[in-house]
């Protein structure tokens, strides 16, 4: 009589794959953690020896330095200074993304133009800017162009623009009254305009008549803004720059640092976006173009309704990457004294703030920006992705 032995006899732990896996991972995590702790312990020990602060208390110390072109007071704490820097980074990134996209799409489309000269010029632009470091472009514009402009005493006045080596000043808006009414009406106007947009789109889906939704929504919004402006007592006025002896008063001033960084970032990123746009347009099957020609669409309509929408889908991930690069490249403002967050951190360190904490905070700021942009691009990508791929 034979007894069947249990088939599922568990192997001893040292041969049990499941146990080994867990043991290995535990050991791995332990080793990495130990290494990290070792580095951290060294850091703390070295800092203590030098008497450098190891906490984040430095953020509540008064800054002591001023930040140009802002309302920041030197008595505010370093955390507020960082916020000013982060705000500058955010604004210049957003503006840069906007401008670079426009320029990039234009140049990318131009690279595929039927006009030989247009094609070659666009190719020249892309190939020359893509292969040069962005820092060099920024330095060139700052040191080579904007600082060489005439001094304020001999500033060039051209219509409503005043151009000198202290900045470009143009007409701006000046607040003369309370903006509350205008803001409320504008918000209401945007809501109504959105409704109008959706209504016109639905009407188009139903009847097929041209929706002209941009005109409709735009008109509605404009109307609301006008009403709000008048009702609020004309709270905004145009202020024109006046050239004083030392500085211009009024208007909207673009400092040379801001202008150089913006121009450099835009030109560089646009050249990369142009390449991506070109690649994405080329990836649209040529049959689409031929069919559009057969149906009788003009080349502009063909671009707008057939090619670009399909190319858009392919282009989203790499263009999103370029946006991320632009945000990261804005950190180069540190080299030309533009007060974005990296420069503020540098000043903080050189005025006595503890370097490790400051750098950690700086990286945190950029991580927040990067992850936000990546999240948005992912959402956009998912929205436009072909279902079922």
């Amino acid at each position, binding site marked *: 009589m034979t007894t069947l032995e249990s088939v599922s006899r568990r192997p001893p732990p040292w041969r049990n794959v499941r146990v080994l896996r867990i043991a290995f991972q535990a050991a791995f995590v332990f080793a990495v953690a130990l290494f990290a702790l070792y580095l951290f312990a060294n850091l703390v020990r070295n800092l203590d020896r030098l008497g450098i602060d190891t906490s984040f208390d430095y953020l509540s110390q008064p800054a002591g330095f001023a930040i140009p072109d802002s309302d920041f007071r030197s008595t505010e704490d370093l955390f507020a200074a960082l916020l000013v820097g982060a705000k500058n980074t955010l604004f210049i990134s957003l503006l840069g993304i906007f401008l670079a996209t426009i320029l990039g799409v234009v140049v990318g489309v131009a690279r595929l133009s039927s006009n030989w*000269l247009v094609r070659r010029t666009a190719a020249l632009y892309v190939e020359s800017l893509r*292969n040069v470091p962005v820092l060099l472009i920024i330095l060139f514009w700052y040191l080579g162009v904007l600082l060489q402009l005439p001094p304020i005493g001999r500033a060039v006045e051209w219509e409503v623009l005043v151009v000198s080596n202290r900045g470009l000043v143009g007409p701006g808006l000046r607040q003369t009254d309370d903006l509350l009414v205008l803001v409320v009406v504008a918000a209401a106007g945007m809501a109504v305009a959105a409704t109008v947009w959706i209504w016109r789109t639905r009407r188009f889906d139903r009847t097929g008549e041209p929706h002209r939704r941009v005109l409709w929504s735009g008109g509605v919004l404009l109307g609301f803004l006008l009403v709000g402006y008048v009702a609020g007592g004309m709270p905004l006025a145009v202020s024109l720059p006046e050239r004083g002896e030392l500085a211009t008063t009024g208007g909207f001033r673009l400092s040379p640092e801001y202008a150089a960084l913006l121009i450099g970032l835009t030109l560089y990123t646009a050249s990369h976006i142009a390449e991506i746009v070109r690649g994405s347009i080329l990836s649209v099957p040529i049959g689409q173009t031929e069919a559009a020609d057969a149906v009788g669409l003009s080349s502009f309509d063909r671009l707008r309704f057939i090619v670009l929408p399909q190319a858009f889908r392919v282009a989203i991930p790499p263009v999103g990457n370029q946006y991320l690069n632009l945000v990261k490249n804005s950190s180069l403002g540190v080299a030309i004294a533009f007060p974005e967050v990296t420069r503020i951190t540098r000043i903080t360190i050189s005025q006595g703030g503890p370097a490790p904490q400051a750098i950690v905070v700086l990286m945190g700021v950029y991580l927040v920006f990067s992850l936000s942009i990546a999240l948005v691009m992912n959402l956009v990508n998912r929205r436009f992705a072909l279902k079922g791929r």
Partner: protein
Amino acid sequence: MDTRTLEPLAVPEIAPPERSLPPGRWVKENLFSSWFNGVLTVLLAALLGWALYKIGRFVFVDARWEIVEVNLTNILVFRFPREELWRLWVALYVLAAAFGLGAGVATRVRSEDVRQGRATPPARLMTLRRLGPLLAVVAVFLWFAKSVEATILVAGIAATWIAARAGGRFVPPRHARRAGAAVLVGVAAAYLVVSAFGGVGWERWGGLLLTVFLAVGGIVISFPLGVLLALGRRSSFPAVRVVCVAYIELVRGVPLITILFLGAFMLGFFLPPGSETPSLEARALVGLVLFTAAYVAEIVRGGLQSVPREQTEAAVALGLSPLKTMRLIVLPQALRAVIPALVGQFISLFKDTSLVFIIGLTELLAVSELITKQPEFLAEGLIIETLVFAGFVYWAGSYWMSRESQRLERRLGVGER
């Protein structure tokens, strides 16, 4: 009725005929095909003409290039001791021999492929066209150097390269791998010639030398690290995966300058108290390596994903251990697929070395800015000349490498899915 099936006629493969239009018609079709195009052409031609005139006038007439002439050695090597410059020349000869050999072997392999019908023969004068930007840069350097002996030495380097290439063509293709190893040995030898045997340490390297060193060193050291990270990211152990992903996403989410700050300001603090602080060059290199490794990891990950699962399954079926599978089957295919992307990353790194300017290292861009502060050139707006010159050097290097990368892509058939 005859109902036999007809064999399709054998149609010879010929390329579509090249259209060569007479000049008049070409202009009309390409430049003035519609009134809009015509307007564009006129406007753009005017703009381009004006821009080319201004640039040409600047470069050839107005610009004061003495600053570059006087400082050429500074731009190339900055504080490298002048009496040790012979080491650099010797290193250049060694590199010319090594790369010439490699080029010769590659040519031989290529002609074998052509003979066996695996590849198309290269176009005429391909070598010269490929080396175009590089030759342009060298010509500009020689023009600014205004020295007969420099010209002779450079001619010697070119001759060495040509001779080595001729020699390399005699190497049978089956030794191609060993020839590749010989090239690497040559590079290492060049490095040793400059820095070892009483040579010049990193602290005195500057200018273009430092730029190239940081770029090459960065990509070489970060490559194995990046491969490890990519493998770790695809590991079946969640713990390993999380650690690798966290590192990669962290490093890719922050600007390079913050990693360089980390290296410059904090690296010394991570070492035990009492240990010698590494030089600033070493710290910058560490920062560049940490940064590039994450990007290389992402590239290699793409390559690993492109290797079909069947390959791994077949390897397992054959009884290969995981290590052997990775080493012999998966990695070679994966890396081959991403060589163009890796070259692209190298180009980025080459341009990004300019950022070490901000932490105080004097590489090409920093030297270009520094020389405008010399007493005889101070405050004369010569920064434009020096930045244009540096920009030209960067442009030539990057353009050359990106063209090579595109060529590689076409040859390897990547992207033709």
